[in-house]
């Protein structure tokens, strides 16, 4: 009876699961419902979790799969993916830190799912590329390039590199041209 229940370890990952769920659903209430479903599933199939492997990544995978399978179902049923309409609230421009955060949030919501996921897991929640790759069931290299592209895209959306975009594109084009020239 003194033996600790390995399932208790799930508890410490709940804050990160909620954060990831918010990133996926873009809605605090739906996020917590998603976490609830994830916990129910996780405990129901806890026997399939291999002790000693990464519990956090395992939980994130369940959360993520639950979210995407439900969204697919919802889209099929309604043919109206209106859950995607976000942040249509009109907000008064404020010339302080809030503006920056608001701009950030708007840009962040515009990212592709896979980019938002990558930045949430790696940038916000501090997962390693390896762990995030496991959570999203992709190769590590894929996770790395998604993260890099996500950063670039976010910087573009936030106009952090406003006077650079064309040159950047040119450089990229140039390097591709150069590379293919050697083939």
């Amino acid at each position: 009876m003194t033996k600790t229940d390995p399932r208790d370890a799930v508890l410490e990952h709940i804050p990160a699961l909620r954060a990831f769920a918010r990133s996926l659903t873009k809605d605090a209430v739906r996020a917590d419902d998603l976490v609830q479903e994830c916990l129910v599933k996780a405990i129901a199939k806890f026997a399939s979790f291999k002790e000693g492997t990464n519990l956090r990544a395992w939980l994130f995978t369940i959360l993520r799969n639950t979210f995407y399978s439900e969204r697919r179902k919802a889209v099929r049923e309604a043919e109206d993916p209106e859950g995607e309409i976000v942040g249509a609230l009109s907000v008064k421009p404020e010339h302080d830190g809030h503006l920056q955060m608001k701009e950030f949030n708007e840009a962040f919501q515009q990212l592709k799912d896979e980019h938002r996921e990558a930045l949430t897991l790696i940038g916000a929640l501090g997962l390693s590329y390896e762990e995030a790759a496991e959570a999203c069931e992709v190769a590590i290299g894929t996770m790395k390039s998604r993260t890099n592209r996500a950063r670039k895209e976010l910087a573009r959306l936030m106009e952090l590199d406003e006077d650079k975009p064309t040159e950047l594109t040119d450089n990229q084009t140039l390097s591709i041209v150069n590379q293919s020239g050697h083939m």
Partner: protein
Amino acid sequence: MPADDARKKRSGDLIDENLKKAFSETLEEGVPDRFRDLLAKLKQTAPEDTSEEPENDEN
């Protein structure tokens, strides 16, 4: 081009800073009672040593 590098770094820092800020509130809330209670209940309904049910379906 050190100016470019500095700009890139600044933009990267800003992104990281905002990312952390965007989720810090949720993370700092800790574990709401709702989930603490749920977990306890789930553990009760399914005792720990359920080594059967080797279904590995991930949806």
